[in-house]
């Protein structure tokens, strides 16, 4: 590629986030921001608070302290549904798909927040409901085409190998046409080829749709290759923030990863 994606203004700003469960401090005074169209990674050793961070953005956890500003609007207490409506979609570390349903139906559930017709009109399949379903189906088919999973369209998710299930999960998140996509370890447990495919899809999503991506990942190679900026957490504290290059040469980060005495 010759031209770099255009990175915009701050879209999500987190200030002084602290989260604790009883006596356990999961996150302590963490501040960072995410700019529009960028790929932002959160890394750190096990138990560093990465998934908690994602759950805070996602509205699953409510931090005791700190503020979250999304698109210039300060967030009050929120539940995940409202966050989804605002245009934030996510995938999960341990795949959360409906195993018995087909790939197509699973991705269709991603359109849930966009469906306008009520239970009744959908149930009796009124003209409006039919038109709407066709519209949603078209969008879902575009996502299927984009992620190259046409061959498993009708296959029950439970029968698919792990790598493809991960891709279906990404498809479901994409079907919601999110402005921001949260990916929780999208490459965990994959082989090299699957990882490369996934990287290409993440870059393509970012490039084609301009989706802002926040990503948690263990594989340092991947993170350094595709991220614009990286936040490093350790024991619930932020120990580094910057471009992949800066982070890689940050002594605190090296300590945390190579495990010198704490």
């Amino acid at each position, binding site marked *: *590629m*010759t031209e770099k994606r255009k990175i915009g203004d701050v879209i999500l700003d987190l200030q002084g986030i602290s989260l604790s469960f009883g006596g356990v401090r999961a996150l302590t005074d963490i501040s960072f921001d995410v700019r529009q169209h960028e790929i932002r990674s959160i890394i750190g050793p096990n138990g560093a608070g990465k998934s908690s961070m994602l759950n805070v953005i996602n509205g699953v956890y409510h931090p005791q302290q700190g503020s979250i500003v999304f698109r210039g609007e300060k967030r009050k207490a929120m539940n995940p549904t409202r966050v989804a409506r605002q245009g934030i979609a996510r995938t999960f570390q341990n795949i959360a798909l409906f195993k018995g349903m087909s790939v197509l139906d699973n991705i269709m559930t991603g359109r849930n927040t966009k469906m306008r017709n009520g239970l009744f009109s959908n149930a009796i399949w009124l003209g409006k409901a039919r038109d709407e379903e066709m519209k949603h189906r078209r969008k879902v*088919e*575009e996502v*299927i085409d984009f992620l190259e999973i*046409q*061959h498993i369209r009708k296959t029950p998710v439970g029968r698919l190998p792990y790598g493809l299930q991960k891709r279906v999960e990404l498809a479901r998140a994409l079907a919601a046409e999110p402005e921001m996509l949260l990916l929780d370890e999208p490459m965990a447990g994959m082989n090299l080829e699957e990882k490369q495919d996934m990287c290409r899809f993440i870059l*393509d999503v970012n*490039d*084609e749709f301009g989706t802002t991506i926040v990503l948690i990942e263990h594989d340092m190679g991947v993170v350094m290759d595709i991220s614009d900026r990286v936040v490093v957490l350790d024991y619930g504290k932020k120990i580094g923030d910057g471009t992949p290059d800066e982070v890689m040469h940050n002594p605190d980060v090296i300590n945390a990863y190579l495990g010198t005495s704490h």
Partner: protein
Amino acid sequence: MLETSSQAIPTIDASTFPRLLLRNARIRGDLPAIREKDLGIWQTWTWAQVYDEVRAFACGLAALGFKRGMTLAVIGDNRPRLYWAMAAAQCLGGIPVPLYQDAPAADMCYVLDDAEVDFAIAEDQEQVDKLFEIKQTLPLASHLSHIVVDYERGLRHYTQSELHGYAKIQELGCQFDREHPDFFLHEVETGSAQETAVILYTSGTTGKPKGVCHSHQAMLATTNTLVTFDQLNQQDNILCYLPLAWIGDFLYSYAQSLYTGLCLNCPESPQTVMTDLREIGPSYYFGPPRIYENILTQVMIRIEDASWIKRKMFHHFMAVAKRVGLRILNREQGIGIADRLSYALGELLVYGPLKNVLGFSRVKVAYTGGEAIGPDLFDFYRSIGINLKQLYGMTETCVTICMQTSGDVKLDTVGKPMAGVEVKIAADGEVLVRSQGLMQGYFKREDATAEAIDADGYFHTGDAGLFDRDGHLKIIDRAKDVGKMADGTMFAPKYIENKLKFFPFIKEAVAFGDGRKECTAFVNIDMDAVGNWAERRGISYSGYTDLASQQAVYDLIHDCVEKVNADLAQDALLSNSQICRFLILHKELDPDDDELTRTRKVRRRFIADKYAVLIDALYMGKTSQYIETQVKFEDGRQGKVSADLKIRDAKTFIETRKAA
């Protein structure tokens, strides 16, 4: 064995591919010409629409400077736009050169340079990347100055001036067409039947690929023979899923479609072929034995996983089919009422639904060719009522040398010579062919052409064969591969390998024995079949190398090898080439490692060199041998696989001729 042609070339206005397109647009403009599944829905283009598409693209190419006699490289899967691009090039008097889309950049480079390609159409980003990579290393003969891309995803930030979107070129073409309204038809008029219609590069089991040039006349005369033979018409449907670069696709899909007006169907993606096959239900089907084998393997795996009632029913009716089905298909007399009834019930309960699932419900004729087909495989399809037949031919002869006639089908022959084809067996057993479908020659290789076609106009196929009592041609092996064992008896490696490969567990085999006292073999297991077999027995494995080295798997293959030996022992000519020792290779033979050709034929000599240490071990009677091999991964990286390979002795049998 001579037969002469009575078939003249069709009427004047159908003498070239572009004129056929014009004719189809005129007389069957509203009928479907081509379909493609896009976003889950089959989209159809009529002949009139195809004509417009081709005309616009051709004019676009002309606007870019495409001239008569130039070549257009076509790289990608079977997409309507790639077929149209071939037609567009032909309309301008240019020559399409389809390439194998899965070939790595280095292989493509040779062909592009040899064919002096300036214009290319590529399916997607992957192919475009390859072309730009090649462009840097190209010698001077090819400039690759224009690359048109069908599917533009991921290319937004490419700024190279050579790159054009397909729609952009058509826009340019429409404008050009308005400014020069007579141009297109004039170009089509100018084209003559003697001009080269296409250059197809042969995969080349030895040496560099050669470009085979076919004229419009040769192609269309052959198409006429084919269409008459199987009575194809505009009602027929074909699923085009085989590589564009292969003569089979050009002839059976592209040429037959233009000639008869039948409809082509492009699959959604290479992985969806099975589903698409079922949805389309083609009436004419062609595939190499490998594909029929894959389908059967899939069926068998699914059946083994089915409930016991279904399994029982399947096996019961397959036994009925085996007993009765073949005779019914061969229109034999004297089949009892009870048998006919049970077969009809089988059709209702098993064969019908099975054919439906496989997409074979409407198949009038299905062909297999390119390699020998296993008896079980061949009989399976025929016994459930699919009219599967064999044919014989090669790129240089527009395939079509011999084909089996419906109702006159034998397992071990390829049928009688087609109308207009003369077949002669040379003194040394080589099959010689003279026909109207013969190539014009190899592109820029007069020397090679002179070697292949003799002064009398006979093409030397390089295959050893013979005619049987009924005038059917029987192919034994590649003439140059047929050798002699140390005791002077014939050694035909492919014959032995095919026997091995007929077992579903064996994917590939290479036999050695030329000039030796004994015959030995390398075996590649079939990952799907053996994997499933292992799973059923609770054998765990981590990958190909691990599975291939398991004791139980060795036992399994050992059984297959001994069955082959028992079979060979019954043949007086070949009983000396029973396999004494074998080993299972630690990696799958792969075209990326040059061990197979792109059409998956074994490159015997290359393998013999590469694995010389294994061959030595086989003949020295060792029980195991360590080997380390370089492999190329699909992403182009290199790696190493190593293993300590076990070597097994197999039982051989004393010649026991079957009483006739």
